[in-house]
């Protein structure tokens, strides 16, 4: 039997002809990404590091610093990049949520291994990169040694067919998958099939990012024309990487088909996405007090564009707060140029600085007891965005924007119909 895409990357980086599920392998890591929180608590300056050219430092979780504690982390980060000659440093002003910064700077390349502390590092699987969250201590260790170990997990393949209908996005594809099949703990996810061509790169990244919410290890997409062009425009031409395709006879734990053309917008109920998401037509239309569009999953330019189109010329409903966090400073600037931020602010949205802040309930936009939030961010866990007595529903940026206008969970296609050219 052949190898899946992720098995091929891990085998290559371990210097082995092949790997199988259950194997424990030691892999060379091509890029190690440290984030601001790494430097905030008990930071210890290493005596030596493996290779400063294989390191990036990105300020994202707590910027601009909401506390003296976080500010001190920034001081440590700046001293570290200076002392060790790390050139890939994205300080406040050219910062952004690390997975967005990784994407827009071509830091994640097909066939490579990328390590970062944050659990949504699997986002880079959209670019055929073996990427996953590894925890602060382990990322620190990789910074020093340039390698780590993986236990090869079995792979579930999603075969996409049909084409994404208007008003349906990558978020909806993910929520359909999570709602239908539930957790994929200790499994990798591999996406492909003839329907993939209709899924834009931003939606692929949403889907890859949220592999974390079904507890998967790695998520991978193949490199097709769309991905090749995306990467080439970000400094990664095709001759700079070796993509990993699955063998035709690769062995999968399961192969599941998703007919994209049959999908509608999805909404996850509070607590988990696993077996807990429904088509918007089947879900209760709960009144909401806060709507959030942002995070590594859905703070991309395309997410802000669709939200702006939905709210343009309308007002956020009384009693609703709409928060919008661009995924990076670059996204912020582009959305500003394109007029999206103007449309959002005119409608009554609060556009914030790029940060992980509201998504993980650390700073900005926390929820009070008894409140209901509809979010396009990554997690709907109890207590995630503030009070454990608040409820967090999850949906696409289009659904969140449409719901902000009506004050209750709303099918975005009703609102989108109003602006269809």
């Amino acid at each position: 039997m052949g190898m899946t895409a992720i098995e091929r990357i891990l085998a290559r980086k371990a210097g082995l002809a092949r790997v199988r599920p259950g194997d424990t392998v030691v892999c060379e890591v091509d890029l190690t990404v440290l984030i601001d929180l790494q430097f905030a608590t008990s930071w210890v300056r290493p005596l030596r590091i493996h290779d400063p050219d294989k390191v990036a430092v990105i300020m994202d979780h707590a910027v601009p610093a909401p506390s003296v504690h976080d500010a001190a982390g920034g001081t440590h980060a700046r001293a570290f990049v200076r002392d060790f000659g790390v050139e890939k440093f994205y300080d406040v002003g050219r910062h952004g949520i690390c997975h967005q910064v990784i994407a827009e700077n071509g830091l994640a390349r097909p066939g490579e291994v990328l390590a970062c502390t944050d659990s949504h590092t699997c986002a880079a699987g959209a670019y055929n990169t073996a990427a996953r969250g590894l925890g602060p201590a382990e990322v620190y260790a990789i910074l020093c040694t340039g390698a780590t170990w993986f236990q090869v997990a079995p792979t579930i393949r999603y075969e996409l067919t049909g084409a994404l209908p208007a008003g349906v996005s990558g978020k909806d594809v993910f929520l359909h998958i999570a709602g239908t099949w539930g957790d994929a703990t200790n499994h990798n996810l591999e996406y492909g099939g003839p329907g993939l061509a209709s899924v834009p790169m931003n939606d692929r990244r949403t889907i890859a990012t949220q592999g974390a919410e079904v507890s998967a290890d790695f998520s991978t997409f193949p490199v097709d024309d769309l991905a090749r062009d995306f990467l080439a425009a970000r400094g990664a031409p095709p001759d700079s990487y070796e993509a990993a395709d699955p063998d035709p006879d690769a062995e999968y734990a399961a192969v599941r088909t998703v007919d994209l053309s049959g999908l509608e917008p999805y909404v996850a109920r509070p607590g988990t996405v696993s077996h807990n998401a429904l088509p918007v037509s089947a879900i209760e239309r709960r009144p909401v007090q806060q709507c959030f569009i942002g995070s590594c999953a859905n703070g991309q330019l395309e997410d802000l564009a669709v939200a702006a189109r939905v709210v343009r010329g309308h007002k956020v409903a009384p009693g609703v707060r709409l928060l919008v966090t661009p995924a990076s400073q670059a996204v912020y600037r582009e959305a500003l140029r394109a007029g999206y931020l103007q449309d959002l602010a005119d409608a009554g949205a609060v556009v914030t600085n790029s940060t992980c802040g509201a998504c993980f309930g650390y700073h900005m936009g926390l929820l009070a007891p008894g409140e209901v939030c509809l979010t396009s961010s990554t997690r709907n866990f109890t207590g995630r965005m503030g009070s454990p007595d608040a409820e967090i529903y999850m949906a696409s940026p289009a659904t969140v924007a449409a719901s902000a206008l009506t004050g209750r969970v709303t099918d975005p296609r009703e609102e989108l119909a109003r602006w269809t050219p």
Partner: protein
Amino acid sequence: MDTLITGRAWVVGDSVTTDAMYPAFAMKLPLPEAARHVFYELRPGWTGLVRPGDIVVAGRNFGLGSSRPVAALFRELGVAALVAEEFNSLFLRNAVNHGLPALTVPGVTAAFADGDTLRMDIAEGWAENPATGTRLPGGALPPLVLDILAAGGILPKLAREGYVPVPGTSGRPGHPQPSGKS
């Protein structure tokens, strides 16, 4: 390293998330204070009951969520080991890297109740309830992982290999614990 561990069990359910163990508000606190909020909503008051040497037993998909180092809080509380029907792999790696043994044992939540004595061997891969005589097989940890645990975690291992200052010799108290994440 002694791979045999005996302790008093605390049993929690399925899909206990990292947010339930290390909520965002606790990420702003020093470790000893942050540790007082483990299971803050799931089992209020638990951190006042847990004693050094206790073992946390959990159901499926234990530790789903973020990379924030919950294991550092468990170690702060003196928890000796984790046993679960199934671990989220990031959570398991964090445990090992912080020197906290974590063993997968299918069926373990049905075999133990709060307060039971639990014996386990992380190299042989089993957990046993001496009171009932039930012994359940689990996934033994690979040698590479046992090496990290034997060193007391990944950072003591790095110190031994000369990558970071040996704790106590650099003028900094305690042992290094880089922190993180959502």
